């Protein structure tokens, strides 16, 4: 059983509160990703699970045991660090064997299990090298092999892919996912990269300023972000936000912003007269349909689609995703509309979701 329970977890460094009251249940065998901007408390939370940091208050439960007082090495966890933390003075073999050497496992057994782990990670030819002689991807595999060798029930990963170049990072994502499926262990993974979180996670925990903002599956979070911060954090390009006011127009509610207004769908949450922010993703901005006028300022062809930035008279330009067949150039006048299904309404002051 590798269920992890965090109860009212708080961590303070002097006067700074890094984590303020986190409650979370991590299921057995789950791939959970904690994501947020730097300084949001995600790494500190991970370190409290690992035992490298002692919580100021609250409890960490692994299985059925409160582990606050237990040494990191005794918690049955494996951890991959941001800088990988391979021992530079040991060979790859000794690096992988370290966890077994600590437990004084017999040489025969060590050799057998190191070879097994190395084969699983496809690094058997590297065993006699030093970490400094390995490429970035190889070092990554060594770090993983070193972690899997003790068969931990929980893997903790602290931005393990951040040192890789873009191409390798994509490959390693797939590989990590395969590893998770094969080992059926619990993965707790920390990253600041929302794309990494979206592609790998079973569940995502979004953190900011020491608080959990939202917990949910990748698509849930993408489709129904709990607040404006989460909405802006996920998805490229960033969601369009329009500040405005809700007004009653006949029997229906109307969103009115600078030089632009839209009818809100029936049954939308906010009452009349309220300051709100309307969020719309680029794929829900429909260029060429609808009646609002705009002027193209910039286009970014991505190949399979094209991003169009256009000025509609508001504070910031809107961005839309269009088919690459649609040829637009800057300065060109267009009309656009918004897809009602893609409306996200947030409170103007608190940023909480309203619909």
């Amino acid at each position, binding site marked *: 059983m590798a269920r992890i329970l965090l109860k009212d977890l708080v961590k303070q460094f002097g006067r700074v509160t890094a984590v303020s009251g986190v409650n979370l249940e991590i299921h057995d065998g789950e791939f959970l990703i904690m994501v947020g901007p730097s300084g949001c408390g995600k790494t500190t939370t991970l370190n409290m699970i*690992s*035992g*490298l940091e002692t919580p100021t208050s609250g409890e960490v439960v692994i299985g059925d045991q409160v582990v606050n007082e237990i*040494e*990191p*090495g*005794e918690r049955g*966890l*494996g*951890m991959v*660090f*941001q*800088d990988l*933390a391979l*021992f*530079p*003075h040991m060979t790859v073999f000794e690096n992988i064997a*370290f*966890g077994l050497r*600590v*437990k004084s496992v017999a040489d025969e057994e060590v050799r057998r299990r190191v070879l097994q782990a190395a084969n699983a990670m496809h690094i058997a030819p590297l065993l006699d090298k030093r970490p400094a002689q390995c490429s970035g991807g190889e070092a990554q595999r060594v770090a993983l092999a*070193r972690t899997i060798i*003790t068969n931990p029930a929980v893997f903790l990963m602290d931005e393990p892919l951040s040192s890789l170049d873009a191409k390798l990072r994509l490959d390693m994502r797939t590989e990590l996912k395969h590893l998770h499926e094969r080992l059926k262990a619990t993965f707790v993974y920390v990253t600041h990269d929302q794309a990494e979180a979206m592609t790998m996670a079973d569940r995502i925990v979004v953190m900011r300023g020491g608080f959990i903002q939202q917990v949910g599956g990748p698509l849930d979070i993408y489709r129904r972000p709990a607040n404006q911060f989460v909405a802006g954090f996920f998805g490229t390009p960033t969601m369009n936000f329009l500040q405005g006011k809700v007004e009653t127009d006949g029997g229906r509610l109307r969103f009115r912003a600078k030089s632009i207004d839209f009818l809100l769908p029936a049954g939308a949450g906010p009452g009349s007269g309220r300051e709100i922010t309307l969020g719309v993703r680029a794929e829900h901005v429909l260029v060429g349909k609808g009646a609002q006028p705009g002027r193209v300022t910039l286009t970014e062809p991505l190949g399979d689609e094209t991003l169009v930035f256009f000025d509609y008279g508001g504070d910031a330009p809107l961005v839309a995703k269009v088919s690459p067949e649609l040829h637009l150039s800057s300065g060109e006048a267009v009309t656009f509309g918004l897809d009602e299904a893609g409306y996200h309404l947030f409170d103007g002051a608190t940023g909480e979701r309203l619909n």
Partner: protein
Amino acid sequence: MRGAPGARAQASFARRHHLFWWFRHAALVAWSMFIMFPIYWMLATSFKDAGEWVTWPPHWYPYQPTLYNYHQIFAFATMEKELSRQATEQVFSIWGAMGDSMLICTVSSLISLLMGTFLAYSVSRFGVGGKNFRYLILTIRMVPPIVIAIPILMYYAIMIPYTTDALFGTRISLFDSYTGLGLLYTATTLPFVIWMMLSFIDEIPYTLEHAARMMGAGRVYTIRRVVVPLVASGMVVTFLFIFILNWSEFLLALTLTHPNVTTLPVLLNKFQSAVEGRLYGPQAAIGTVITIPVVVLGVVIQKHLIKGFSFGMIRK
């Protein structure tokens, strides 16, 4: 005439470049000669026969090279209490002083290295002693040694004998003892050890230790298998550096030891003062013998000297 101004500029550039080449090498050669001459003169004198020490005009090199000076200082015999000015027949064995220097420098450097390394580790990893501890420790190094020597003299020669007399009934004096000087050498080199080792330990990412702990290694095991192997070369460099410092130390040795314990610098000074510097040959030989090992060690750790002398303020 399009090319003319360009060509002229180029010619003047080349001329300036050439001049600069000469200036650079002239200046560097001049300074090199200034540096090397005193050392050369010592070496030359150490091979000169008694008759050549003070001739006028001086001999720029030994006309009749001899090893007699070295033979004299390496003699296996006890040295006379009083040195005579004439005495080319005298025995000046430096074995005693060499042994004293070796013993005190090795042992106190080792103790200092051990204490300093452990403290540097806890300062680097746990911030022991507060943020400014590392600077506080510097003050000890900056106080002029004479200001330390006077209190220590009274402490060693008066307070400790009185106290031991009262407590155990025997007078134990640390004055003129191996322990007394060794303790001081340990104290005066500790700041260097702490600073140098801090700079080495700070370079090791602490995630290595975290990784080891995550894999079940305890503190002691982590230090033995992860930290120590990584700082071992730094410890060797630090040891050599403080060994050189202790080997060269003069003031404390002069004031707090002799005649029982005599280090090499004090011995050389004894020659200089007792005979008004007239035993040039043996003195030059002693100077050479003291200098050579240290310069050799120094060249080995040349890259790291700056770390020591600048308290790690400047990295190379």
